């Protein structure tokens, strides 16, 4: 790669935080790996400490820079602490990937309000808190203060609906608009912070596996293979996506190569929403 491309696409000298990155087979871990390989110092956060530490260790073993920190994205105080620690220990805070999320299964008519609220508290409220505290830290005068890039994990369900996941779908639709509003504010206020929504299709992750199993358990489909086939055929490319395909897209949004992209949906969906 020539020097220009390396400088623009690379993340050397940047510090990145990725939430919900403890599952080794998840999108968060893939983002953390990709960002670390591109040269960023990565702070992996999650509530699953043991698994999160393992992801950090495996990145370190591969020659990248990664540490693990506990962060429950539902707590604003925890966000403030995590970001302050990041700035003090890593020397900055330039990239935030608000990836932490949970699945929400079940028909609307059967969905308990408490379950709806559980999903909302992580998938929407948690992203709001991360975006808010991320901007507070990155904007001029903030504890990091050098601007940056915030990447909010949406989904194709930020754009279109699916059955049996209304709480998840609703929140992803909410994240998309939260992102656009944040991008507009950061732009107009000249904070030098870009905020974008990542829009992956169905990705081969542990969470997807769990989701498929839930649908079988609830009798919504006969087998995991049946629903996997539905997911596969939903993507014109003919397969389910790979976590690293999202990780690499996150690298792009994190890097200076995407310096004119803000408030956008980066669709990484094998053509799912093209139809």
């Amino acid at each position, binding site marked *: 790669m020539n020097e220009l491309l390396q400088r623009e696409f690379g993340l050397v000298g940047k510090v990145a935080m990725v939430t919900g990155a403890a599952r080794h087979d998840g999108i968060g871990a893939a983002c953390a790996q990709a960002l670390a390989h591109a040269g960023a110092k990565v702070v992996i956060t999650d509530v699953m400490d043991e698994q999160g530490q393992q992801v950090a260790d495996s990145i370190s073993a591969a020659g990248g820079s990664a540490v693990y920190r506990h962060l429950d994205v539902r707590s*604003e105080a925890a966000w403030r602490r995590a970001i302050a620690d990041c700035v003090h220990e890593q020397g900055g805070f330039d990239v935030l990937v608000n990836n932490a999320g949970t699945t929400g299964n079940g*028909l*609307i*008519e059967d*969905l308990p*309000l408490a379950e*709806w*609220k559980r999903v*909302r508290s992580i998938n*929407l*409220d948690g992203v*709001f*808190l991360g*975006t*808010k505290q991320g*901007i*507070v830290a990155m*904007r001029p005068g903030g504890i990091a203060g050098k601007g940056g890039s915030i990447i909010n994990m949406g989904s194709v*369900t*930020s*754009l*279109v*609906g*699916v*059955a*049996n*996941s*209304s*709480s998840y*779908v*609703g*929140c*992803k*639709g*909410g*994240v*998309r*608009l*939260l*992102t*656009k*509003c*944040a*991008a*507009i*504010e950061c732009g*107009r*206020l000249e904070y030098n912070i870009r905020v974008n929504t990542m829009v992956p299709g169905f990705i081969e992750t542990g969470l997807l596996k769990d989701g498929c199993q839930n649908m079988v358990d609830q009798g919504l489909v006969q087998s995991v293979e049946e629903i996997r086939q539905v997911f596969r055929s939903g993507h014109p490319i003919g397969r389910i996506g790979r976590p690293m395909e999202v990780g690499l897209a996150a690298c792009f949004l994190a890097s200076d190569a995407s310096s004119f992209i803000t*408030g956008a949906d980066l669709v990484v969906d094998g053509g799912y929403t093209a139809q």
Partner: protein
Amino acid sequence: MSPRDCQERLAGKVGLISGGARGIGAAIAEVLAASGAAVMVTDVLEDLGKAVVERIRESGGRAQFHSLDVTDEAQWTTAVSQTIDTFGGLDFVVNNAGVELIDLVVDTDFEKWCRLQDVNSDGVFLGTKHAIRAMKPGGAAGKGGAIVNLSSVGGLVGSFATSAYSSSKGLVRTFTKSAAIECGNLRYGIRVNSVHPGMIRTPMIEEFFNRFVEMGLFATTQEAEQATVTAHPVGYVGEPEDVAYAVAYLVSNESRFMTGAELVLDGGYTAQ
């Protein structure tokens, strides 16, 4: 359309409207009642809600008021069964109740964010849930129907200092599509659509302008209003009735092939 056609358009239909005491909700209640529907006007604002019901009755329409806090699931159960008991059915629910918050993301207090989401997001979820339960085959009303969820242009595009509101409306947009798919797949005979108004002249709009001035975004409310009008290519803001006519279409049989869709009424705001 002649007044006679109007009266027959929703004849025999029964519906519930949340947030019906003022603004867009009140206009929806009045237009749907004038189109022949019996309407349960619900809100937390009892006096204003009852005044809407009085106006409807004076013009010969059928309406009743029922107090409903959309964040309380038990109250939804009661409101829906009360509607069915009173008017003999349930054919549509309009999830209109909503609140506003004008603040920068960095200044948005988490408690206020949550309170807004409780009403604008959870309230629409609960209204949709209980509408489906009542209108689906075997439900207390059981004849299918239409659900209309009030989103906004804020559910389509972002804007300055509206992140909490806009997020809730973005949530309503995709949630509505999921509801439409579920009801379609299950052959419930229930259609679910979202409506996306641009700026509409309501009591809320004045609060908007005052808040913009308070935040220093505009020097005067006149300036704020001028900028708002300019953002709509037609050169004027909408009236509550503009939204109400669209809702009348969505709850009528004329829109029988429409579900999971976004009906945009914004004077061209999002066309740019």
